[in-house]
């Protein structure tokens, strides 16, 4: 049981490039989330999904896209990378909403230069 896995661990992008951050969970959780963490700012929700085929915007969705074709996978796509997207990105999953704790992946550290 690997939990939530993320790839890559680190990535450097040039301005204007695109990339996909991968997230997979093996706990059969319906709910999945993408957060970004900036120093002193806590976690900000980018997108979330309540099940395969269903996604919704979080607090900071601009510049990102997601898809959820399977229960296990929830990739995050960055189009036209900008320096403001330099951050640490975390994927998380949970068995339900509200009362259920979230399980986090190890994170992807992204630098855009």
């Amino acid at each position: 049981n690997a939990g939530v896995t993320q790839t890559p661990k680190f990535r450097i992008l040039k301005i204007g490039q695109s990339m996909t951050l991968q997230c997979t969970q093996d706990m059969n959780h319906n709910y999945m989330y993408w957060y970004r963490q900036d120093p002193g700012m806590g976690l900000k929700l980018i997108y979330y999904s309540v099940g395969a085929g269903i996604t919704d915007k979080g607090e900071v969705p601009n510049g990102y896209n997601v898809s959820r074709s399977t229960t296990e996978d929830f990739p995050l796509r960055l189009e036209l990378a900008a320096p403001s997207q330099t951050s640490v990105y975390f994927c998380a999953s949970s068995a339900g909403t509200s009362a259920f704790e979230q399980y986090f992946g190890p994170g992807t550290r992204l630098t855009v230069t």
Partner: protein
Amino acid sequence: AQSVAQPEDQVNVAEGNPLTVKCTYSVSGNPYLFWYVQYPNRGLQFLLKYITGDNLVKGSYGFEAEFNKSQTSFHLKKPSALVSDSALYFCAVIDPGYSTLTFGKGTMLLVSP
């Protein structure tokens, strides 16, 4: 709207002394409250949660938290701190009418030998 505040950026405590990390919240209904811990270069780990019932909640690694509805607080406590408790701690809240958690900005706990 829901919000959470962690008024201290950093808490310093000597090993063996009790520790408290503060959290206050604002929701329109009855809150669900969570504490997570983040060790360096790792994802967040769930520590404990308050959903309903006893105001004193016990969690992992000897941590506990007290829900105080009149003061809208959910402070994290431990009777005797360990150097290995040094980490970044996040409080989070969800109003059951909402779909997603709101995280505080985090409090760095430093336990000195």
